């Protein structure tokens, strides 16, 4: 490797946030025309490093060299000028703008003081033909499917003549098949001299597409390796610093009575479009039904409808022999439903409230926590102390505001609250999203334990591995419908991937 082959180097980068050392003397480099994967858990410091390279954060110390020259990147403007482009995990697109407007934004062509949309559209057409990235400049971005939006993001960087492309968790929102398509595009780009930093926490993808792999953990670089020299287990060990159990230990399920019966349920999204389109399934006591699917196929709205947070358009669902279709949340929870919501900070917690208050959020009005409309503080306090101990919530006291807890402990507050109530069914939506490995293991164990105690569990997760590890049966959702329900163990990852893309065995046969 000669030095002029080195297109980007980050040397000894350190970045502190209040209470967190996000990057601790990190070294990272990128060769011309390679795909260099940056692997690590959530919170390992990958995104921080990339935001530094892209000029969104300034490092506390360390140096960035682009094409061998030391540079200071003050803002995205500087990084764009240096030929760096970034596709963020959450797309940086404006839904009400057209594709052309999104692409030209910040780098507009102007004629006679007016935006020159024609020239821009021509340039986009040209780019999309050259790289095989088909996009329509006139389309409104908000109406495009996620995969196409990602293409728009890539075209946006190419429009600015990017030579270095940073892709931050690009496959999080894609089906396995769409991901393969993305990998094809990535290889095509490198063939034309673009260098790519590929950020992910998915081991299989790294092994499939990367030329080199750098692993980060807790703000530090653990090591750099090549796909030929490693495998999934080794990478996983590097990521978390110890051997991890990728599977959850659990016995076989002993399903009993049906606790949740869903019949032909239809639900609309915020814009009034049908997003859950006639879903039927049942969950029995003592089993975990996993709902697999790429994000945005109606799982979120399904969970919201079942928990009373979203109105039902038609169909019905029966919880513990009681029809609670379209009821508000309270009667549903009282019938015996526990809910670990997808967005814990938005729905699950009142962040400024104390841990103790959050632990009675769904039962503050019931005895012993309230009598005649008056809150019984001592009961609230002793409840909190008991749950903190039982569920190992790491908090200095029950009276600290909940926003001071780590993500994992915030989630434990919710889990403790929901599981301590008398429930028959647990709806767990993305229960481990964004958590550290320790908390993930703990919550997985709790969910299995509840199943073994005879609880029905509806698990909704975008992580296929989580679904496969926990579920007894798996229902695959695609475009608002359940395209298949399968017994776990009788299906492979690949088959599930096809189902998640809407390709059913019948379709393949046809």
């Amino acid at each position: 490797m000669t030095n002029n082959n080195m297109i980007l180097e980050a040397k000894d980068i350190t970045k502190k946030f209040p209470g967190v050392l996000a990057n601790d003397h990190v070294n990272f480099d990128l060769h011309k025309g390679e795909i260099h994967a940056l692997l690590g858990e959530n919170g390992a410091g990958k995104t921080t490093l990339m935001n530094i390279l892209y000029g969104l954060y300034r490092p506390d110390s360390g140096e960035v060299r682009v094409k061998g020259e030391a540079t200071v990147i003050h803002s995205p403007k500087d990084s764009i000028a240096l030929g760096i482009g970034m596709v963020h995990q959450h797309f940086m697109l404006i839904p009400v703008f057209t594709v052309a407007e999104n692409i030209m934004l910040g780098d507009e062509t102007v004629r006679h003081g007016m935006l020159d949309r024609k020239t821009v559209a021509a340039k986009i057409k040209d780019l999309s033909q050259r790289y095989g990235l088909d996009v329509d400049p006139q389309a409104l971005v908000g109406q495009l499917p996620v995969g196409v939006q990602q293409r728009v993001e890539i075209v946006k960087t190419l429009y600015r003549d990017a030579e270095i492309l940073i892709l931050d968790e690009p496959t999080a929102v894609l089906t396995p098949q769409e991901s393969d398509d993305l990998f094809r595009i990535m290889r095509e780009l490198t063939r034309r001299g673009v260098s790519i930093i590929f950020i992910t926490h998915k081991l299989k993808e790294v092994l499939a597409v990367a030329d080199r792999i750098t692993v980060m953990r807790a703000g530090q670089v653990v090591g750099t390796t090549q796909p030929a020299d490693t495998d999934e287990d080794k990478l996983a060990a590097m990521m978390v610093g110890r051997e991890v159990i990728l599977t959850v230990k659990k016995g076989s399920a002993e399903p009993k009575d049906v606790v949740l019966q869903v019949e032909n349920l239809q639900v609309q999204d915020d814009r009034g479009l049908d997003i859950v389109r006639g879903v039927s399934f049942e969950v029995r006591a003592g089993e975990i039904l996993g709902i697999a699917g790429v994000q945005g196929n109606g799982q979120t709205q399904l969970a919201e409808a079942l928990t009373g947070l979203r109105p039902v358009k038609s169909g019905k669902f029966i919880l513990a022999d009681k029809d609670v279709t379209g009821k508000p949340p309270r009667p549903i929870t009282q019938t015996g439903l526990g809910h670990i919501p997808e967005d814990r900070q938005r729905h699950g917690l009142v962040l400024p409230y104390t841990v103790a208050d959050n632990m009675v959020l769904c039962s503050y009005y019931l005895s012993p926590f309230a009598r005649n409309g008056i809150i019984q503080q001592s009961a609230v306090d002793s409840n909190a102390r008991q749950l903190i101990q039982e569920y190992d919530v790491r908090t200095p006291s029950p009276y600290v505001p909940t926003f001071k807890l780590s993500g994992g402990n915030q989630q434990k507050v919710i889990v403790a609250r929901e599981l301590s109530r008398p429930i028959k069914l647990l709806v767990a939506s993305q229960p481990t999203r964004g958590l550290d490995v320790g908390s993930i293991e703990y919550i997985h164990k709790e969910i299995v334990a509840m199943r073994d105690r005879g609880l029905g569990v509806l698990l909704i997760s975008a992580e296929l591995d989580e679904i496969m590890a926990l579920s007894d049966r798996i229902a695959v959702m695609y475009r608002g419908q359940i395209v298949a329900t399968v017994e776990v163990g009788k299906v492979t990852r690949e088959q599930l991937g096809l189902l998640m893309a809407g390709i059913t065995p019948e379709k393949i046969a046809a």
Partner: protein
Amino acid sequence: MDWRRFGIILFIISIMFGIVVLIGITQNSPFVIITSMLATTIAVATPLTLGALSGIFCERAGVVNIGIEGMMLGAAFFGWLASLYMNSIFHFSTMPSLIVGVIAAMLSGGLFALLHAVLSITFKVDQIIGGTVINILAIGVTGFLNRQLFFESGSVFGGQVPHSPGVLPSIRIPLLADIPTFGRIFEQQPITVAALILVVITHFILFKTRWGLRTRAVGEHPRAAETVGINVVRTRYINVIIGGMIAGLGGAYFTLQSVSSFEPLMTNGRGFIALAAMIFGNWTPFGAWAAALVFGAAQALQINLQFFRELIPAQWAFLQNSYLVGLAPYILTMLILTGLIGKTTPPAADGQPYEK
């Protein structure tokens, strides 16, 4: 601006015009009445139009501004004060004094807006509270200075209100103003004409220029704008200040165009109604102008009913009562905010402080 909304606006305006025509028909021809109503409507809609445009600049960039009322009140006072200074202390003649007054009004509107920008963008104060601070500050400062300068001996004006330079004269639009009967519509005072021109200019800036594209991007998704190298904070500051200057021009309407005096609290909620016009106009300049005309028509109705007071039939006696007829714009505003006559969508990041 969709056609349904345009139809609703036309319908409401026709009802209000219709009432006056029906009442006044025994004394005047319908054409004369309609012309007079239209001319008044356009004129009294001026501060609402300008207030709504001010709101559009701020909110398209993502800053909610409920301080427009205060900005207009402050500008009305300081514009008037500047014209008095010019006229009675520096002995400028009428027109130069008034022009200096208008400029001063716009500058003071811009200064109030700068304060709002500092509060809401730099210090990330809740924007509604920030706007309320502007409103209260404007009432306090204008009330205090009004008393101190004009009613306390020892001030530059010797404790009395000096002779004012009057109001801005009307402009006749050539040819159009010569049309018989209807020509009166095209004879309007300068701030009204400026407001109409600003509607067109604002539309052009927002939807045809680079600045407009970037402004809208900042109001929709500031982080996305930042990642393509746009300075979110600077863009917001400039738009809020432009908005403040336009509100300032709206303030000048009260003391330099409509009447030639200042009264405490004289903006009388127009800044808030302007926000409703902005919302009903779906944050577009032409839409906001059309909505402002609805409120203008309600006010024109009140004025013309006073004029035809004796002709109002007994069973419609409540129309004689200006307090009750005066409720119309406020009730209309509330109806519009219910969204029952058409849903609107604000810029996605409206009201959210930008954290890097």
